[in-house]
């Protein structure tokens, strides 16, 4: 399912499957470990396109990418290089949600509909975004799930003892995240002020027990983006696309069809 391809100035790892209108998925700071169950379900009705962002997975890392704005610009370039017909539907998870929100503030013509999942990008008023970098890679991954051992996707990708390559990949993702989101940590000082100008129909999806990006951030996004809706998934942490794939895919499909 994963192939290497040249696009937007670099070589990237691209997963793509299904038939239908394009549905672009921008992964989060933990990378995308494989063709997820939720992707497979969405691929029944959509052409699901999942690039590994620059510096993640096997995608190369250009040193000039130093911030989330750079990633946002890169994603629009990538979509043009893939000849995706605009506007596209898009899912942005966590850091990828922040990337998507940044694009939506400057290029409303880019998206048909947008789904932000446990999105980074705005600073909560009461709680805090979890600091991945005071803990090890394993601790951060576990915290992203409400019950890692009960998630088939967690167990499939991260539940066994890691090989040296898997350990390196986790560290590589952490390093790339540092490069783009170290300070201010995982948020922008301007984004929340620009969100009221977003014209894209938006669904926000949050796990009720998200211990990385507090649910409060989802509520703030919902209040800020006109006509947006917040869908909360019960018994779920920061990665609904992995921890509750069926419920996640159902929410997304209903939104895209509605």
């Amino acid at each position: 399912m994963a192939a290497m391809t040249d696009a937007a100035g670099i070589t990237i790892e691209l997963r793509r499957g299904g038939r239908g209108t394009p549905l672009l998925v921008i992964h989060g700071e933990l990378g995308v470990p494989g063709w997820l169950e939720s992707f497979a379900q969405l691929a029944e009705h959509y052409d699901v396109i999942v690039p590994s962002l620059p510096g993640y997975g096997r995608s190369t890392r250009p040193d000039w990418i130093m911030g989330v704005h750079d990633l946002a610009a890169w994603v629009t370039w990538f979509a043009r290089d893939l000849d995706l017909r605009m506007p596209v539907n898009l899912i942005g998870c966590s850091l990828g949600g922040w990337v998507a929100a940044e694009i939506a503030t400057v290029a409303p013509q880019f998206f048909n509909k947008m789904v932000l999942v446990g999105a980074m990008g705005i600073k909560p008023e009461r709680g805090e975004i979890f600091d991945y970098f005071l803990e090890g890679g394993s601790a951060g991954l576990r915290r992203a799930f409400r019950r890692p051992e009960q998630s088939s996707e967690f167990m499939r990708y991260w539940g066994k003892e890691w090989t040296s390559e898997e350990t390196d990949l986790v560290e590589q993702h952490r390093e790339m995240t540092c490069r783009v989101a170290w300070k201010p940590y995982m948020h922008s000082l301007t984004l929340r002020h620009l969100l009221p100008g977003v014209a894209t129909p938006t669904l926000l999806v949050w796990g009720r027990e998200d211990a990385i990006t507090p649910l409060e951030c989802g509520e703030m996004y919902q209040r800020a983006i006109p006509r947006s809706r917040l869908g909360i998934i019960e018994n779920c942490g920061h990665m609904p696309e992995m921890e509750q794939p069926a419920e996640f895919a159902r929410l997304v499909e209903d939104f895209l069809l509605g």
Partner: protein
Amino acid sequence: MTRKFFFFSEMGYNAYPLEALEQYGYSALLFPNSIFDAEKARDLWQMFLREHEYASEMGFDGSVCNEHHNNVLSMQESVNISAAVISQRIKGTIALIGNPLPIHDNPVRVAEEIAMLDLISGGRIISGFVRGTGVEQLSTNANPAYNRERFEEAFALIKKAWTVPGPFRWEGKHYHLRVVNPWQLPLQKPHPPIWAAGILSPETIRWAAKQRITYLVLGSALDATAQCRDIYHEVAREDGWTPASEHLGYLIHTCVMDTDEEAYEMGRHHYGGASVIGRSGGVAASALSTGTGSAGATGGGPHPEWMAPPGYMSKQAKTGNMARERRMSEGSYDGAIRGGLIVTGSPETIIQKFKHIIDRTDPGYLTFWAREGKKPHNATMRGIELLGKEVIPDLREHQSALVTGKEITPWPQ
């Protein structure tokens, strides 16, 4: 050049309760500063400064000071303030090991402060630059992923500020300054001697060799230090020059007392607790951690993850021979002694041990880390006295086997 002998102390806050280390499992970064007692720290400062002064009186060529943040290990949050004060208490050289460049957003400030120090001290400054440990990056919110880039760019900027007449403009990747034109410049020309100090990163050793500056090995095991020297010399050979003794410095935990037995027991203060050696979050232990994030048995030091935040350390540095050897040595106090991380003994024994060390590494600057942890002041002072009066005079005469081609002095049994 003649070999120089320096005194070093982290000047750590040793008034911490041991049970606090047990309770938290670490002694840095998140170790709560509610434990800090300012009155005890005031007294510690006077004690530490007196120890530096005494080392100077006993014939040491200089003192070495350092910088750490949010760490029981060291009370020196500013190496430049330490150096300023010490320069007024000792006669010899003050080596800073050093300014952690990546944590600064304006490296010219560092250039200015070193120039001040050099002027105030009458040209007695050695300016060491370091990348800082992982904890320094987290304490100061310096992005660890750009640590090496920032280090190298800041170094280039400081060196230019010292050697190229201002004003000039600097538009780099990490640093941007409209006007670089520091009014005060160092007394020593073209600038004070520059050192790079490090522990495990072969990249830094290679970089130092490329710059032809002294590389100071920070408290590493003997075999690892010999490897550092080999790497340095290899790079120099490729570049067509031959390093001298002065291109290598060696900082080494040293505990000398009147008898071997006494020194062995007193040397325990160099191991465990909040010390650099033998803690759960020791440098090599952290470097080899796979991210389980658990604190280890001894309780002190930083959390392992904090020493190697993402992008701070290359895989080679984490898993290479030098890291492995250090980790092997750190497992126990006796292991640390066997590996040469801690050198103990009576003057007679220690002289032989250091002749062996000099024979194998030929450091131009030998720095005795002779005060550590909760070691009592009187024992520290006695150690300084023995080093100054008995050990250093004997070692001054000793030429390295690497230079003479003679047999290596055997390690005493």
